[in-house]
């Protein structure tokens, strides 16, 4: 586990190919980023069911809504900075309000987009999407769970947002892994502290847990891939067991997964916690690894937060 890396975008393309073969109602709509998103592989196999609308993200979302209205399972997406970034009204009014079968799968979430800089680094999308009624939000932790999640949501009616990462990331799960939408995955169990992560912070949380172990701290690691609807049951369970919680996400700490966990704990079982994430700031250009370090999105940051919580009692 985690010795190799894979791209979530490639996994998305593979999932689309399988879905296209098994369900003739699956259509794919893109906006000039289909090569990058790997949704383009669907076009070579099923050209009649693939539609490129050009650089027009609002139109992308609304056309996908129209296709869902006429009975299709519409997969649409581009870079996260544009969807949801440029198309929130269309997502809210065309997809979520009528509860349509549109699956928005978008790549380039977070600051690990890298050299393109802050204009392309979406750190607000989880907050935006989880505030929209009926919208379901998934932030997969690796390529294996990305493929499983994309295949799973094709069979669940209603609107989804799936946030992917630009770069290749460590593979957390083996291919036999069974994905369960809405159910957080307990990857590692320990009684001292719970590390709750999503997206690329899942492997970082695992690294942090390993390092903490050498210091005598045994951590639970929870992959909270489904940010909405949130798995309150599992979150409360690990909070009761561990008594301390650290959340980690490649997103603004305001409104994201950490906020969602804080809501659950605040109402259900108030627990000392710390949030690791982007501290309400914009990113900048740089190599992904350097930026993640600079903005505190690493195993070391998670470990530091955990150690702080361990000492505070």
């Amino acid at each position, binding site marked *: 586990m985690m010795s190799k890396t894979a791209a979530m975008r490639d996994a998305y393309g593979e999932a689309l190919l399988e879905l296209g073969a098994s369900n003739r109602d699956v259509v794919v709509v893109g906006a000039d980023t289909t090569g990058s998103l790997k949704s383009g592989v669907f076009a070579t196999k099923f050209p009649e069911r693939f539609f490129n609308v050009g650089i027009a993200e609002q*139109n992308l979302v609304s056309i996908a809504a*129209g*296709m869902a209205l006429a009975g299709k399972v519409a997969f649409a997406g581009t870079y996260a900075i544009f969807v949801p970034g440029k198309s929130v009204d269309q997502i809210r009014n065309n997809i979520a309000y009528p509860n349509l079968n549109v699956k928005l799968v978008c790549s380039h979430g977070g600051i690990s987009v890298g050299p393109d800089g802050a204009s392309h680094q979406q750190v607000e999308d989880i907050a935006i999407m989880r505030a929209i009624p009926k919208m379901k939000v998934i932030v997969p932790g690796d390529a294996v769970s990305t493929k499983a999640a994309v295949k799973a949501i094709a069979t669940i009616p209603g609107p989804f947002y799936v946030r992917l990462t630009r770069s290749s990331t460590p593979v957390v799960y083996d291919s036999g892994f069974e994905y369960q939408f809405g159910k957080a995955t307990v990857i590692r169990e320990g009684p001292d502290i719970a590390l709750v992560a999503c997206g690329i912070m899942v492997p970082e949380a695992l690294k942090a847990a390993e390092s903490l172990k050498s210091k005598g701290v045994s951590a639970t690691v929870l992959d909270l891939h489904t940010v909405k609807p949130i798995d309150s049951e599992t979150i409360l369970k690990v909070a009761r067991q561990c008594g301390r919680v650290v959340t980690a996400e490649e997103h603004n700490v305001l409104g994201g997964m950490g906020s969602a966990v804080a809501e659950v704990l605040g109402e259900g079982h108030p627990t000392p916690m710390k949030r690791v994430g982007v501290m309400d700031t914009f990113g900048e250009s740089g190599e992904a690894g350097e930026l993640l370090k600079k903005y505190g999105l690493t195993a070391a940051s998670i470990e530091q937060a955990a150690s702080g919580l361990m000492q505070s009692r």
Partner: protein
Amino acid sequence: MDTAQEIVHLKELALSTRKLILEALAEAGSGHPGGSLSAVELLVTLYFHVMHHDPKNPRWEDRDRFFLSKGHAAPLLYSILAQAGYFPTEELMSLRKTGARLQGHPSMGIPGIEAPAGSEGIGLSLAVGTSLVAKLDNRPFRSYVLMGDGEQQEGQVWEAAMAASKFRLDNLTAIIDRNGIQQDGLTEQIMPLEPLAAKWRAFNWNVIEVDGYDFSQIMDGFDLATSTRNRPTVIIAHTVKGKGISFMEWSPHYHGTAPTKEKLSDVLSELER
């Protein structure tokens, strides 16, 4: 029924539609009369002459689709749907009330409504989506969308216009209610649209201009749209905001101000004249 007889029938429907719009708005105490009254003849023609639809089976797979992109004209669409038999006309008096089905702008759950509307500039994209599916699955239905003229200021309209001509959606007809007025004033002062027909031609659409109150022109326009191949059609209908009520005509104020209950009987009697 020959054409002349049919036009007499459609005129009667236009009159009853205007009455229902004004009664519903007066009862609601808020809403948008101007852009509802301007497009009455267009929707009467669509629902009672052009479209294939079944009020007893609103989800019929091969029904023609209608999208009201100018969602604030909900009282118009509701009045049409009620008279077509989608729901009782009495229900129109519940418009905009808490717990009622008839929301201030179209929403799901109302028989005959295809999609929510209210945020301008979006309906054409939805119709592009349904038209693409009809082409993909070789199904016979057509998609229609009514847009406002002020709405042409939204960029998404032109994104959709490009897409519809790229995909050669000859099963799609857009209608523009060209009444020249938007909430803040005249379209040509707020953000000029002219030359509007030339813009749509430049986007490779088949453009037809009609008098929005001349039933035979409107019918011919829809016939021509249906018989046009490889290109979508836009019908630019020249209309009058607030049509039929003298103090509402050409008035930006009555874009979004309902008639009072006290004034209603005067207003209705003007229609009978």
